């Protein structure tokens, strides 16, 4: 809980800093201005959805590098299927989700049965799906009309993507905290063999994590293509897995596995998007974007590690 308090304070501090800077330089708090919060909420929504997926896999001891390609590929399939066969986007969306389930099962199978490294398996998916998306579309940008409510609509003045994030967050959060499977996943992230010796079906659990991640990435891809109305096969979702991992790590998921919380991941996602927003509002040259964000994430992670080392040393010394 300390970690969540820490990053919430960081988030609040960041927002405060942005507002203060704005007030003193332009005399208005554009952060809270008309479209800004709404835009921000929508972006946090989308990042949050697939960051939760990344976080679940990470805390179970694995990693999924294919998230970005799944997002892109989902968008391409959505657009192409609706255009080519005239199906309702909602039907195609269900199909895309089913495809993501199969992808997750595939990942779980390769990692569990053949003991392959998650890094390599998902890296290959990253390449395969990106290539597949570009191949079937010929690299041509695809449009998707009449489906913009999901990505652009609002309910009670809050953008739909944010609502989706909240609902998914609650469901998955409940699952992780109030069912035994959550406990199993954390344990597997700490020590997979010991969990196997305790009679838990490790492969099944791990596959569940990868399925969740793929499905969430698929949902994010669907919402994304709804938002922009078009998808470019070559770079839709490119590198998104890095943002997902960054959000998850900022939110408390150690890459070693066994740690992390859904709320933390959402706050992590918010931190990243607020940073982006801040950079824009403050007029920082967008060329410097990634440098700024990279430094902040690194700073956060170092601070966290230093705090942990201090705490661990205190307890370990007490043991003698």
């Amino acid at each position: 809980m300390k970690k969540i308090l820490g990053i919430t304070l960081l988030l609040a501090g960041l927002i405060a800093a942005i507002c203060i800077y704005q007030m003193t330089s332009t005399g208005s708090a554009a952060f809270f201005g008309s479209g800004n919060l709404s835009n921000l909420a929508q972006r946090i929504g989308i990042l949050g959805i697939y960051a939760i997926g990344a976080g679940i896999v990470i805390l179970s001891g694995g990693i999924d590098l294919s998230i970005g390609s799944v997002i892109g590929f989902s968008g391409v399939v959505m657009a192409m299927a609706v255009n080519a066969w005239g199906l309702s986007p909602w039907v195609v969306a269900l199909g895309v989700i089913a495809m993501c389930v199969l992808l997750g099962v595939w990942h779980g199978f390769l990692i569990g049965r053949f003991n392959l490294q998650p890094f390599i398996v998902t890296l290959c998916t990253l390449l395969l799906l990106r290539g597949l998306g570009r191949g079937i579309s010929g690299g041509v940008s695809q449009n998707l009309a009449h489906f913009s409510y999901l990505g652009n609509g609002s309910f009670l003045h809050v953008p739909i993507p944010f609502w989706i994030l909240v609902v998914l967050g609650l469901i998955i959060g409940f699952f992780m905290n109030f069912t035994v499977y959550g406990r199993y996943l954390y344990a597997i992230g700490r020590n997979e063999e010991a969990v196997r010796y305790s009679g838990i079906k490790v492969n099944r659990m791990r596959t569940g994590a990868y399925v969740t991640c793929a499905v969430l990435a698929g949902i994010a891809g669907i919402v994304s293509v709804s938002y922009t109305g078009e998808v470019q096969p070559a770079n839709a979702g490119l590198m998104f897995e890095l943002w997902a991992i960054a959000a998850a790590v900022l939110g408390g998921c150690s890459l070693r596995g066994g740690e992390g919380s859904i709320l933390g991941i959402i706050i992590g996602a918010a931190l990243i998007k607020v940073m982006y927003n801040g950079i824009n509002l403050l007029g920082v040259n967008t060329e410097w974007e990634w440098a700024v964000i990279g430094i902040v994430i690194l700073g956060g992670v170092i601070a966290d590690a230093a705090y942990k080392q201090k705490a661990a040393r205190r307890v370990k010394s007490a043991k003698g």
Partner: protein
Amino acid sequence: MQGITKRFPGVLALNRVDFELFPAEICGLIGENGAGKSTLIRILAGIFQADDGEISLHSQPVRILSVQDSLALGVSVIHQELNLASNLDIASNIFLGREPRKGLLVDRKELYARSAELASRVGMTAPLTTLVEKLSPGEQQLVEIAKALSAEARILVLDEPTSSLTPTEAEKLFEVMRRLKNSGVSMVYISHRLSEVQEICDRVVVLRDGERVGEIPKESIAASEMVKLMVGRDISRFFPQHGEHKESAVAMSVKGLRYEGCKSDITFDLYSGEILGVAGLVGAGRTELMGAIFGIEPKSSGEVLIYGQSADIRSPADAIRASMGLVPEDRKALGVILEMCVSENITLPSIGSYNPPFMDRKREKQVATEQVAALDIKTPSLTHDVQFLSGGNQQKVALAKWLSLNPRILILDEPTRGIDIGSKSEIYKLIRNLADSGVAVIMVSSELEEIIGLSDRVMVMHEGKCTGTLAQDEINEERIMQLATGGVHGA
């Protein structure tokens, strides 16, 4: 070392401890886990600094502020977990970081020449170009000693050096130690194996609860003396009474079992209420057999019957459903999950059954509290991480995991490895009580005293096959060793 005092938050680890080491002697340092032995040694090795007290070497006061300082002063510690680079050869390991140089390059001729000299000093016969990972634990230990000697160590601290050695290798180690002693090296020997301490040490210093409680000169070294000082009370009946022989049902019947690494069919019966000791040398294949029975390893043929019913066990989940439990050999890697807390560990196998699929934290707490009380697990709280408990308490947590499931068959693999005397005795009582309540217990152990003291019957393995089973009145050290080294029962 005089008046050494060391405080950690909340704990007085060492309280004005004096420890002296004379030239050319082997001094044993014993005490329960938590008594302060490792803290004292770490202060000597420069890993910690004492809050109070002085250290002097050859009557000169010294300040040891870092590991480099202690190495420079000729102090070398050989830890329980060896620190060798397994992918390098013997000579490279001996001089790791201190290779003789010719300018910028390593002087290989000099390296091998000097290594050869050290190797003969420790009686190592393997060629110096052998990769360390190909050596047996005993030979690896010799490399560590040679390494210490290459740093001109005059004081050698050996921390539990025999825990992964066969009896033959341990003897060889003692020979080397005696030779070193004759050449003037002094040694501190830390071990829980009191019979070894008795054999090799010139005197023994006993620590308890951070204080030096006594010293035993060579003539008086006896296990009972040592135990009394270590524990502070008389453990007269170290091993609980054997169960009376009563007619009981066959709890488990293994027929014609074959798995990878076994050299012939394994067939044996296990009776309810008995403790079946499984003895053998390191590498005899006992852990693999237990793995095959429990579903960790696949079996290629054979069947396992539980109370007469055939049980198709292909995974630990199946074994658990058949009312079995297994406490693995490697406590830290497999028996418990170190970074999780006591209650989480204890309830891991059973939590899925409280209120599936939901978490029942109330019941979790209840079960964990029951087990902690029943096994007398010393922990500040249920939410304390298991990695902060002592070895003995960690093992109790590993046991508690299974006890809450009420298994009818429990397999224990090296249940008291690396555990101090006091906790060992408690665990033996627990095992006996379990058996008396009807559980069929299999106990794999490499400590003969344990096997002889606790088992109702003993099955011995040698190189992947079962060489014989001894009934209660046939159990003795000789017979067991005979079977363990390949003799056949009845011969």
